[in-house]
């Protein structure tokens, strides 16, 4: 099957907008294919894709071992870019015992640099959604990768604590690839499987935080054996994540595609994508109270996960008198659990939605995140190594699966402001990490063990906020959907983000299409409607 939509310009199937009189969006309508004079392509425009697609040309199946354009390729480029950035951001953590001797750092210096390493991304994640809306996912990703690579290389210049902190701060900005990656998958995959897809992309990307704990010491050792002194070897080691970033940036730009139908610039010039107003998109995100709840919730799942990436190796090293490489291996297994934990969380969210709709997703999130907090408390209390490792693994599963579950919910909070809300939620993760590192791990007020337990308790308390997420069309953890006939329709919720003027211009058509596809969030009650997409093509169990 020819994939005509690969090259720029030959959108092929997207005829909508060719007269330049209609307003269309990136997810162009294919129902009525009017241009029969161009009958080279088959009558079924959705047959152009390697996978079955919905009306927005988003893939309805997820095959992780495939690299087919555009959907699976976008998936792999997205998660590997994010993975590379995680490697760079936490690359310093396993080398701290060498760096602290070279730069004469104190515990306070190290703690502050750890906070700085996650703080930059608060702002870059906030901006990233808008950047993706403006530039497309490819350039969003490539900008982050290739503009933060210089920061990684500049570790070779660092001479003191101030320099170390600044460089870690600047490298940390690239964690916004999380937003560009989940934006990219959200435009490529349909709502029914988005929990699993985002779970895999996010989880496999987060694995970078674990892989780096093994990779950097190994690279450092090889360079030392090749003849460099330790204080030079660690600087050279940083070139590896730098190279990885540049290579990934080039791959993203050459192999990737912004949307199922083509790249953003081409679609826009052809009149296929209307640029939405940034201020409006931002406004609708800020107006939605669920944005803030998700911001906080993600801070206590992803946030504490990132905090652990920074402190856990040192914790095991000190508390249990382990060798540095043993502590590093344990630290690595925390991060690597992401490989299956986060996708399982996303999958659990999708499965619970099939039976219980959105309420299922909310309960899944609450259960996973609360158990994560509980096991974190246990980790702090554990006094023997096997118990501590057991507690840590259960803890890692809980919080990482919770991360996957949250992003099963995010795509439904808004259609117009999806990018911004993705970004805001992601920023919440970094904010939570800074927030937990500062009081619990950067001063001598608490022993690290007590810090861990307190962090777990705080997480459990804030996770109670899940109960406050309520959708009028689907309900919440404890309340059902509204009985009002008008407001209980998905269309009402999503179209409410457009003014009457904009509706007259037809700008809301994308939201209407999305509302139709989102009826699956009613759970088992979706079937009688007849408009939900058929189930036979879907196979989300391909993990």
């Amino acid at each position: 099957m020819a994939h005509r939509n690969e090259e720029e310009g030959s959108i092929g199937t997207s005829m909508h907008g060719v007269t330049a009189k209609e307003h269309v969006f990136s997810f162009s309508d294919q129902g009525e294919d009017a241009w029969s004079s161009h009958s080279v392509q088959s009558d079924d425009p959705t047959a152009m894709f390697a996978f079955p697609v919905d009306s927005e040309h988003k893939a309805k199946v997820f095959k992780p071992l495939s690299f087919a354009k555009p959907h699976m390729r976008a998936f792999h480029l997205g998660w590997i870019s994010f993975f590379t950035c995680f490697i760079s951001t936490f690359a310093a953590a396993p080398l701290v015992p060498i760096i602290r001797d070279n730069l004469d750092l104190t515990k306070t210096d190290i703690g502050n640099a750890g906070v700085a390493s996650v703080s930059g991304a608060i702002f870059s994640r906030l901006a990233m959604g808008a950047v993706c809306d403006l530039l497309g996912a490819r350039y969003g990703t490539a900008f982050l990768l290739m503009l933060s690579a210089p920061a990684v290389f500049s570790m070779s210049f660092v001479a003191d604590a101030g320099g170390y902190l600044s460089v870690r701060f600047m490298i940390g900005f690239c964690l916004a690839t999380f937003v560009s990656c989940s934006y990219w998958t959200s435009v490529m995959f349909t709502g029914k499987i988005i929990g699993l897809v985002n779970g895999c992309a996010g989880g496999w990307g987060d694995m970078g935080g674990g892989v780096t704990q093994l990779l950097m010491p190994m690279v450092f050792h090889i360079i030392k054996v090749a003849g460099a002194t330790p204080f030079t070897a660690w600087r050279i080691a940083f070139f590896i994540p730098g190279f990885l970033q540049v290579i990934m940036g080039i791959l993203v730009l050459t192999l990737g595609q912004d949307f199922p139908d083509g790249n953003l610039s081409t679609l826009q010039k052809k009149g296929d994508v209307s640029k939405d107003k940034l201020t409006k998109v931002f406004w609708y995100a800020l107006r939605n109270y669920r944005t803030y709840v998700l911001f906080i919730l993600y801070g206590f799942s992803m946030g504490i996960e990132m905090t652990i990436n920074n402190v856990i190796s040192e914790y095991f090293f000190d508390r249990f008198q382990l060798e540095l490489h043993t502590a590093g291996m344990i630290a690595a297994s925390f991060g690597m659990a992401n490989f299956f934990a986060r996708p399982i969380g996303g999958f659990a969210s999708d499965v619970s939605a099939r039976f219980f709709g959105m309420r299922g997703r909310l309960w899944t999130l609450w259960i996973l995140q609360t158990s994560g907090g509980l096991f974190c408390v246990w980790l702090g209390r554990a006094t023997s190594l096997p118990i501590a490792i057991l507690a840590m693994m259960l803890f890692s599963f809980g919080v990482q699966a919770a991360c996957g579950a949250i992003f099963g919910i995010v795509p439904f909070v808004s259609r117009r402001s999806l990018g911004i809300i993705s970004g805001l939620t992601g920023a919440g993760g970094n904010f939570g990490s800074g927030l937990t590192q500062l009081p619990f791990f950067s001063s001598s007020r608490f022993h690290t063990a007590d810090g861990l337990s307190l962090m777990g308790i705080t997480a459990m308390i804030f996770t109670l906020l899940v109960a406050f997420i309520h959708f009028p069309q689907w309900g919440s953890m404890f309340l059902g959907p509204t009985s009002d006939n008008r407001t209980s329709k998905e269309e009402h919720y999503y179209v409410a983000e457009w003014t009457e003027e904009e509706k007259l211009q037809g700008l809301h058509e994308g939201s209407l299409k999305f509302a139709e596809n989102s009826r699956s969030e009613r759970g088992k009650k979706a079937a009688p409607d007849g408009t939900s997409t058929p189930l036979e093509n879907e196979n989300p169990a391909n993990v």
Partner: protein
Amino acid sequence: MAIHKIILASFIVYLMIQFSHGATKERLFSDLEKDALDVTAKPSRQGVLDAGIDKLSITWKLRSTAKKQANFTTIKVKLCYAPVSQVDRPWRKTENELFKDKTCPHKIITRAYNKSSQSFKYTLDRDIPTGTYFVRTYAVDAKDHEVAFGQSTSEAKPTKLFSVQAISGRHKSLDIASVCFSVFSVLALLVFFVNEKRKAKLEQSK
């Protein structure tokens, strides 16, 4: 259910093994004989010493007041952090339990015990961090357990300390490589971006 019982049982057995380790008495620093050896450490020059370049002249000799010298087999000479270099750095903390103590991580030399005065000219290693130091010699018995020590400074009020400045680890070639790769990264991005914008404009004008 049987598998659960087996797992639980093996866990309990493991825990008991762990706890039983704690039953053996840990060797303490306070049990060692103090000032068994006279140690002097003379820097090769005044001021802050440079790691990798400057030297220390270290001498050690058995003191007449020493009691346990019959057990001495080997002498281990180590470079130790002065208290001022341990502030806010828990990885250099002084602990009474010898296996936890991190005051003296840098080995200088190990020699068989000899009653007469010994000396050694030590060139500071290139991976010695910036800090203030003194020298301590441990007298070790045949079982590789410390029995006594002597040090170049007094315990109550640290005197005769010396300062070391570490190497920076930076190299000009590294700096240049770093700049080159950074410039390449930014340029490559710009080239792609400008190129694509131009192509899109051409498409539109067609």
